[in-house]
């Protein structure tokens, strides 16, 4: 039995690598953001540009689009590593896959969820979101997209060995996304009404912590099953 690098070193090595790959493949990184921006642009054009129509649907709409953008980027999380054999190397390195999945999901969040949350105020303006809702929007999206990325890693890991796993991935993951969507859009709506929204945000943060702890276990198990078949 020999020593292998500690989990913290495996985590930083994996995280750095994800950012490096993303920096080299910039179009993949911008894809969900462009999707997010363009749909938010289409909604006022397609429905009505006036504030009376847009303001009531803005919180839910922005949240739905953010959720779909994350969903769109999910199938790539483990796919290329599976195809070039890196995933095997991760499993056989002797490292606990738990930490490697955390590193990958965290990088996925930094590259999709975080920019979405930071961009959301601009979209709020386009959707005529009332001024009271902005803080709630950004905070709920920060925690919410975090949960979406970690929960999504399970589906991504389960379907990685399938050639066309996209549809199955959506079917597996969408039900798990429902609570996050409900709490997220309701926190923004409550904030718009001027009522306390901390309850929903606290629940979102709780879901985020829970998914951070549990989802990597499930994803690590799924990867082992996917590779073994």
């Amino acid at each position, binding site marked *: *039995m*020999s*020593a*292998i*690098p500690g989990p913290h*070193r*495996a985590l*930083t*090595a*994996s995280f*750095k*690598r994800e950012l*490096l*790959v993303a920096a*080299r*493949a910039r179009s993949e990184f911008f894809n969900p953001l462009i999707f997010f921006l363009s749909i938010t642009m289409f909604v006022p054009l397609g429905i009505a540009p006036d504030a009376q129509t847009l303001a009531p649907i803005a919180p839910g709409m922005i949240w739905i689009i953010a959720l779909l953008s994350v969903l769109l980027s999910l199938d790539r999380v483990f796919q*290329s590593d599976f*195809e*070039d*054999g*890196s995933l*095997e*190397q*991760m*499993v*056989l*390195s*002797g*490292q606990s896959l738990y930490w*490697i999945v955390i590193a990958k999901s965290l990088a996925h969040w930094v590259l999709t969820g975080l920019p979405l949350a930071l961009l959301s105020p601009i979209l709020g303006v386009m959707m005529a979101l009332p001024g009271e809702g902005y803080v709630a929007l950004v905070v709920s999206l920060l925690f919410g997209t975090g949960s979406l990325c970690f929960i999504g890693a399970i589906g991504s890991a389960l379907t990685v060995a399938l050639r066309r796993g996209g549809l199955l991935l959506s079917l597996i993951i969408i039900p798990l996304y429902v609570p996050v969507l409900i709490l997220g859009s309701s926190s923004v709506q409550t904030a718009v009404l001027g009522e306390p929204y901390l309850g929903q945000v606290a629940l979102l943060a709780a879901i985020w912590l829970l998914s951070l702890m549990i989802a990597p276990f499930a994803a690590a198990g799924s990867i082992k099953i996917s*590779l*073994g078949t």
Partner: protein
Amino acid sequence: MNRIEIEQVAFERDDVNLFEDVSATWHQGEIVQLAGKNGCGKTTLMRCIAGIHQPSAGKISWNGHNVSSFDFRSTLLYLGHQVGIKLLMTPMENLLWYFGINGTKSSEESSIPLSRETLLAALTKVGLAAFADVPCFQLSAGQVRRAALARLYCSYAEVWLLDEPFTAIDIAGVEALKGVMEAHAGTGGVIIFTSHQLWDSEAIRVLDLEAYRPKAQDIAL
């Protein structure tokens, strides 16, 4: 003494055994070649030994431990068909990542991060010194495989599982690779590799998977 034991292993695919009753014991210092026609299960047996696939019967163990245990993985270097090189990264970055999660797997010293110089020396040995900082998608297929083979020069893992290590490597490269493998076996390592190339050497033990084809299959046909 380190050993890999394979006991009556069979692997079933689509209700038919790919191979069955494979038994062997390999000790440290041995180089084993898995041979056989295309599709006879060389890669599958290799992946069973690595602990990725579960054999449908029998068991494979390393010093008495299961091959999917930490005891085995912390001393394993596996080179698959897909070598695990990210084409978007340079050979150097790929090695930094690989050793970042694997370490040198040395049993003596605790795992110290490898310096750039050490990795560059390994890349020089596989003839990639000039390409250390060139993205791998600009390299040829053989060069990409060489970048993966550079791991062999830095790793102290006792067990090497090499699936088709000679693919896309030129004649001089193959000779160098054979030298590294012999040196590793000489220092007490175990090497299992698959290849269609003949390697005439007394040190090589050959396991021909053709001998383990299920007999019942022929009757059914």
